[in-house]
Structure formats: C-alpha cells, structure tokens
C-alpha cells in the first residue's frame, strides 16, 4: 500500500516537473525581456521611444524612435489580414461544406504543406520572384517594401485561418443545417446564415492566430521588406517591422543600441500578449 502511494507521488512529481519546465521557460523569457528591455526605455524616454519617428541606432547622434516599426508591423498585419482572411475563410467554407471528399483531402494536404514550409523559403521565393515582379508590374525602382511583405504574410497566414475555420465549421452539428434546409433555405444560404454564425468563434480564433503569426514573422519579412527605417507612408516604401528591427541589428549591436533592441522585443512581446488575450477571450466564449 505504502509502495503504491510512493509510486503515485513520485509520478505526480515527475509530471509536475515536466509541466513546470514549460512554465519556467515562459517565465524566464518574460523576466529576462522585462529586465533587459526596461533600462533602454528609461534612458531614451518612453515617448521618444514609442513615438519617435527616426531610428538611427549607429549614428553619432543616435535616435531611437520605433514608431515607424510599430506602424509598419500594424499596417503589414492589417494588410495581410485584409487579403488573407477573405481567401482563407471562403476556402474553408468551400472545403468544409461544398467540396467533394477527394478534392477536400487533396486541398487539405496542400494547406498542410503550405503550413509546413519554413519561413525562409517564403522569403527566398519572395526575394527572387515576388520582389522583381512587383518592381516590373508597378514600375517602381525597387519591389521590396510594404506591399511585398503584405503578400508574403497573407500567404503565410492562410493555412492557420483555413485549418482553424475548417475545424470550427466541421464541428457545427448537422442538425442545425438539416433544420435550415428542411425549412427551405438553399445550401449556400444555410452555410452562411447557419453554419458560419455557429462556428464564428472558432473562425475568429483562426484570424487572431493568423494576426499573431503575421506580427511575429521575421525571416520572410526581412527578405522582402527592404528594411529601411522609414515611416510606412506608401505601399512600396521600404519598411522595417518590429521583428526585423530586432533580428536585423542584433548580431552586431552594442551598448544602448543593443538595449534598445531588447526594448523593441519587449514592445513586440506586449503586442503578442494582447493578441493572446484576445484569442483566449474567443476560445473561452466558444466553450460557454
């Protein structure tokens, strides 16, 4: 009896340890980011930092304003959502409700592959194909910029949106749709008036996850955005996102520049936390 109790306790302990490792990692990163991110904000001044329009980290008279990065990240993400969400949503409705079984299987496989492509590959294809194409089609001197980033991000968030939406749409009880059809509604009417509203929190969660992916992506964006620290006042402007601002300069940074990069990471972290909060809200509402 005692032995059994001991086994029970030790296994409980092991599982607790395993669980704690994940939590510890999050805590470590959070604490580290806050500790290393706060000092530079203090030195630069929170308003100069968040609202400054100029970033010249290595200039003699260094300027650390990250408003261009914040705006670029927000515009880039919004743009990606504007293009990616309609496509992803329609695709999910088609795959979940209308597509024949064979087509559905093949397309879901394609979506999974899309999700599994490493971001550096998106970036590389973007750099070699998309950027020159943007330059020729729109007649701008250089194709790298906000527009190219939006296209790449839109493609990258598609799998997230499609998968989450399909799961939510598939989970809608068949009785709902049967009832609607029996009342004389057309199939498409049923899908949009009955199935989609019933699945809306799952779809919304997919969109929020997509936002998270878009705002957190750095490798692919770095290869197509141009990375000039400019205010994003044109679609073809060379811009730098929050992620690429950190990743781009980190390897050679020193002193206050390095500390400021940690502060940017902290700002990005806060953004991601907000997105996670929104996501939790949607997922909780789904359960009720």
């Amino acid at each position, binding site marked *: 009896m005692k032995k059994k109790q001991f086994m029970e306790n030790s296994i409980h302990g092991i599982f607790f340890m395993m669980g704690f490792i994940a939590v510890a990692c999050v805590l*470590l990163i959070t604490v580290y980011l806050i500790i290393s991110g706060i000092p530079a904000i203090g030195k630069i001044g929170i308003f100069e930092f968040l609202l400054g329009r100029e970033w010249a980290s290595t200039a003699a008279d260094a300027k650390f304003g990250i408003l261009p990065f914040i705006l670029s990240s927000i515009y880039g993400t919004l743009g990606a959502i504007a293009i990616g969400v309609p496509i992803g949503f329609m695709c999910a409705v088609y795959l979940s409700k209308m597509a024949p079984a064979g087509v559905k299987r093949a397309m879901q496989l394609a979506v999974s592959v899309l999700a599994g492509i490493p971001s550096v590959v998106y970036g590389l294809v973007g750099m*070699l194909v998309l950027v020159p194409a943007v330059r020729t089609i729109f007649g701008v001197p250089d194709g*790298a910029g906000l527009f190219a980033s939006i296209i790449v991000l839109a493609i990258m968030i598609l799998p997230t949106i499609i998968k989450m939406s399909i799961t939510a749409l598939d989970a809608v009880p068949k009785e709902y749709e049967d009832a609607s059809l029996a009342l004389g509604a057309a199939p498409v009417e049923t899908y949009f008036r009955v199935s989609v509203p019933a699945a809306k929190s799952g779809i919304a969660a997919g969109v929020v996850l997509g936002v998270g992916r878009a705002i*957190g992506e750095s490798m692919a964006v770095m290869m197509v955005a141009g990375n000039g620290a400019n205010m994003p006042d044109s679609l073809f402007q060379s811009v730098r996102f929050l992620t690429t601002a950190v*990743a781009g300069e980190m390897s050679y940074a020193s002193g206050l520049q390095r500390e400021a990069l940690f502060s940017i990471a902290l700002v990005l972290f806060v953004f991601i936390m907000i997105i996670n909060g929104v996501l939790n809200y949607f997922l909780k509402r789904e359960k009720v």
Partner: protein
Amino acid sequence: MKKTVIGLLIFALGFSGLAGCGNAGKATVTTDGSTSMEKTIGCLGEAFEMETGIRVTYNPTGSGTGIQAVLDGRCDIGLSSRELKTDELQEGLEGTVLAYDGIAILVHPDNPVSDLSRETLGAICKGEITDWSQIGGPAGEIVLIGREAGAGTRDGFEAAIDAKGMCKYRQELTSTGDVITTVSRNPGAIGYASIASVKENVKVVTIDGISPTDEHIATGSYKIRRPFILVTKKDASLSENARKFYDYMTSGEAEDIISFAGVVPANSVTE
C-alpha cells in the same frame, strides 16, 4: 527562423554563466564574433589543429557579440570585422589586424557604368545623385542596397567613402548573399559585398580606376577595405593554447592560408 535564433540567444545569455563556451577538458581555443571571418578562421583553425592537435571552435555571432564575449570572458579570442570603438578600447580591449578584406562595389551586369570615383559613390550613397543618367548610365533611379546598421561591411564601406551614418539605403539586408542576389535582380541597383563572396551574376566596378585585386587592397591603393581584427583583453593574458593559436595566426606561415580564404593578410602586425 530568426525568432528562434533570438530565442536561443536570449537563453544563451540567460545561461551564460552555466553554458558559455567553456574551455575545460579537451584542449580547445574558443573564438567568437564576425560572421564575415568564418572562412578565414575556419581555414586557420583547421590548419592549426592539424599541426598541434588543439581544437579551435568558432561561434559566428557577429562582431558586436564577439567583442562582448571577450569582455565577459566567454571566449579566448574575439573576432571583429570593424575597427574597435573608443569605448571598447577604454574597456581594456586590444585589437590586432589579421587581414584586410576588400569591399567590392556591385552593379547589375547589364549596367554600362564600370568605374566610379569615391566622391561619386559618396554622393550616390548620401542621395545627392539619384539617377544613373547623371553618371553616364541609362535613365533610371539608383537603388542603394546595403547591410544592416552595425555590420562590419557597412562600417567599412561607409568609413571608406566618408559617409558614416549618412547613407540612404533603399534596402538593408542582413547577409552578403542577400545583397548580391538583390543586386543581380535589379538593373538599377548598386550594392557592396566582401570581395571573396562576389560571384558571376553581378558586375564589380572599379573605384577611381583601380580594381579590387589583392595587391591593390594590401597596399591600400584600393581604398574600400576593412580590417579583420583579433580582439583580446589588454590586461589579462591568454591561455597557453590561445596564445599558441594567436601566434600562429599572426606568423608568416599563416599568410598563405589567409590568402587562400580570399582575404589579404596584413603585412605588418600592428595595433
């Protein structure tokens, strides 16, 4: 990808006390720093290991990180592809020029412009000349492609044309390969990259009529070059193995290996 790298970096820093690049146990020399020096240090390290059996490890983190690593005592020899800054020298660091790396100025292969003066190049970078037709090329905006702030190539380039911190880049990319690829894809582009990495798909222009050959770089007649620097602490002495490697790298017999790696050995070893 980069996010992971940063995550790892954060961990590495967090655990630096535990992990570091400890040199206990087997005989090793640890180096840390500039990614541009990968080939040079790789070749030297291999040759040194064959001769002495002492292993040389190389951690390609970037000049800034490498210098910091020396300060923190996390590695034996730091590698920097830019001159040490005054505050770094004040912290008790010392630099020894190992070699010079010529920086080639690249344009698209179809671009008829084949020579630029340093003044013209400076004016292009500062945004005073914005169209190829102003300097004898076809009409079209000049697209300046460069490296990110802090990169050794960028520092070396901007210092050589007296335009430090004044360059107006259309694109700031984080690797030499990306710069070359981008220039090769845009007829209006101009960029710079380490000579050793330049490939067929871009055209190298001469500066004031001087081409970036080894000889021109070594004598300094080709002006756009940067140093490869070994960073050590002034007051603390190197470990026995690190001292051996250091002496080996700065000795005459290493010169062939340094040339083999595509850079020009510094003839006289001076501060």
